């Protein structure tokens, strides 16, 4: 089964288990997870709107896309809705979507007062509930092909970091060299904002829907002595956020999920003490001690953690 259909099956199972019979998604990462569609990347988070609907019982999907370029074959042209600028058309389409009128529980991945009113009108019998947590829970552990995609994205980010580290210009010039190298290596879309400040760099990208990234300090310590080494070692199945706090160095640190972009859990000195790591989760692990910063992308395995980002730079 193709990767996006495996992912969709996970999402459908999770939604069904939560008693949600209809999903209205507006966040691109959730839409990518479910549909596998390659849509144009834009920076920044959009306002909430109904970009994709999923009838949980039938699996029927409608996707906002004027064309089938980048859309997997399992979503036919007659299940694409063209871009619209009309609120009336958005309403008519939603109202005509099979299953929504009778839905009892409609899941949404964000909320605005205007959209809440619209959804109440088209699903008059439904409770409108947030479902972002259900989808993110389903996304938390990664399939083998997802890990491969993350590893490939890490290699692209490493090309950017390397170019910025060896460049001897200003920080702005090093950033320019880094984003140029990343584009040549396979991604013109950043995950986080690239960083080059003094001898510290951090580069990340989204490549074919998946994030990869790493951070380095020029002339920093060898891998085993980097600021986040103790945190990486602590990323084992069953480790809690509290365990990670005990393993963390003095200074800023963050362990957070990574997959189709930034994902939960978020574990730092303030949040996430109750979270528990599982095998096949992928996390970004970063820490700063003194003047040294390091970040890597790490796969939690049944044995020792596997670092997916290249050791060099």
């Amino acid at each position, binding site marked *: 089964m193709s990767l996006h259909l495996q992912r969709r099956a996970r999402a459908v199972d999770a939604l069904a288990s939560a008693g949600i019979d209809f999903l209205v998604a507006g966040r691109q990462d959730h839409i990518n997870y479910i549909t596998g569609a390659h849509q144009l990347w834009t920076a920044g988070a959009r306002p909430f709107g109904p970009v994709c609907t999923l009838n949980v019982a039938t699996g029927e999907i409608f996707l906002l896309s004027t064309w089938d370029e980048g859309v997997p074959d399992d979503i036919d042209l007659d299940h694409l809705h063209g871009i619209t600028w009309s609120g009336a058309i958005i309403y008519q389409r939603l109202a005509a979507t099979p299953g929504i009128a009778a839905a009892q529980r409609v899941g949404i991945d964000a909320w605005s007062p205007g959209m809440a009113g619209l959804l109440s009108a088209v699903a008059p019998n439904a409770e409108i509930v947030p479902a972002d947590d259900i989808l993110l829970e389903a996304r938390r552990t990664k399939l083998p092909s997802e890990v491969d995609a993350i590893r490939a994205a890490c290699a692209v980010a490493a090309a950017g970091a390397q170019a910025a580290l060896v460049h001897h210009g200003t920080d702005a010039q090093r950033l320019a060299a880094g984003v140029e190298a990343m584009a040549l290596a396979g991604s013109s879309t950043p995950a986080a*904002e690239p960083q080059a400040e003094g001898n510290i760099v951090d580069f990340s990208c989204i490549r074919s829907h998946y994030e990869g990234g790493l951070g380095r300090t020029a002339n920093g310590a060898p891998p085993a002595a980097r600021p986040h080494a103790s945190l990486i070692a602590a990323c084992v199945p069953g480790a809690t956020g509290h365990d990670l706090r005990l393993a963390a160095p003095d200074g800023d640190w963050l362990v957070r999920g990574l997959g189709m972009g930034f994902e939960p859990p978020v574990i730092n000195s303030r949040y*996430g003490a109750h979270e528990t790591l599982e095998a096949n989760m992928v996390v970004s692990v970063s820490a700063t001690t003194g003047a040294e910063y390091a970040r890597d992308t790490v796969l939690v395995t049944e044995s020792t953690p596997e670092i997916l980002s290249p050791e060099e730079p």
Partner: protein
Amino acid sequence: MSNPPTGAAAELELDVGRLRRERYAKLQAQMAADGLDALVLLHGPHVAYATDCLPIAADATHVSANRPVAVVLADQSQPCLLGGDPNGLDVDPHPAVWPDIDEGAADLGAQLDAILGQSAHGGRVGIDLMTGAMRRTGVLSAADITDAANTMAAVKLHKTVDELACIHQAQVRTSAAMATVQEALVPGVRRSELAAVFLRRLREEGIDANMIDVIFQPMARRMADGPRTTTGHLAFPTWSGDPVYAEGDLIWVDAGSDYHGYASDFGRTWVVGRPPTPAEQRCFERWLAVMDASYEAIVPGATFAEVCAAATAADAAHQPHGERPWMPHFYLVHGVGIESAEMPFLGTDNGPDFDAANTLEPGMVLVLEPAIWDDGTGGYRSEEIVAITDDGWIPLGGGHPYDPFEVPT
């Protein structure tokens, strides 16, 4: 026929203090008109409008994870900024929040209760977005919530002089980066190589916020050979992987980047490695005629419908089926500002009644993007930006050549 317009906007100079003061005063006035006690803003461009804390040009998941939040209270002299970097801003700073996770949303709720005081209990509060975590943790559950979208749409529709200066700068710098890219467009080059040049050059032009994965889309010469569409018309702009361009390929270019939170919109048509054929050049000349007719019709007080009618009439001789000279899933004109596409929209699927009911007003910014298509030949599409003045319009950016197409003398 016209060369790309140039002129007056070059004299616009950004005064950041004035930009902030004038926007904030407009926001306060609109809140009073809308009867709002408070505005709570999470959408990045809205936060920037209220506080000048600029949006980060990163993936949506990163931007939303620990996004800054702006709170504007009626009659308060400055906005509250939760998170973000308050250095150098005229804001009341508050700790960062993580509204996408339940613990962070609970923190946000507590901060909002403290900032809003009595307004959190029955006050009229406009908000533009809530995360699932905010819904789960009951953020602002005791307030009288309304959508902030209308308030924001009203204030951003007419630009201040500093907003025009920002759009002008965004467009000038994006155009400068694209001039280098066009030199790199030779047979055998890949899309990723052009993107690399563009992203480097943008930063060299002082822009670190690229807002859309830059588009160099090779166009099939016949619609039937391109992607299938819901409109039966063109597919543009699509995701297109990493094609290698060959001599004679027809490339439609589209890019947008931010200068001080304001978007550029660069559109051009290029041909790889050779001059345009006479048939391709004719498409360009039809496009110029549509632009000239549109420029002529753009005056304060004109209805959207009048501009659309003028543009349509200019190409009517080439349209046996009465089609309009723009892509049916888009528009003849869209606005630009803190969003890459915002009101005014002319010629959309909002329909003729909408276009007849709305008029151009001073301070509106228009991106003209007609598109000409001659099936079998291909087509021509470029974009130009103008700002409506009291008695006409001025170009923003502007002057970027139409090479390799030639403007007839």
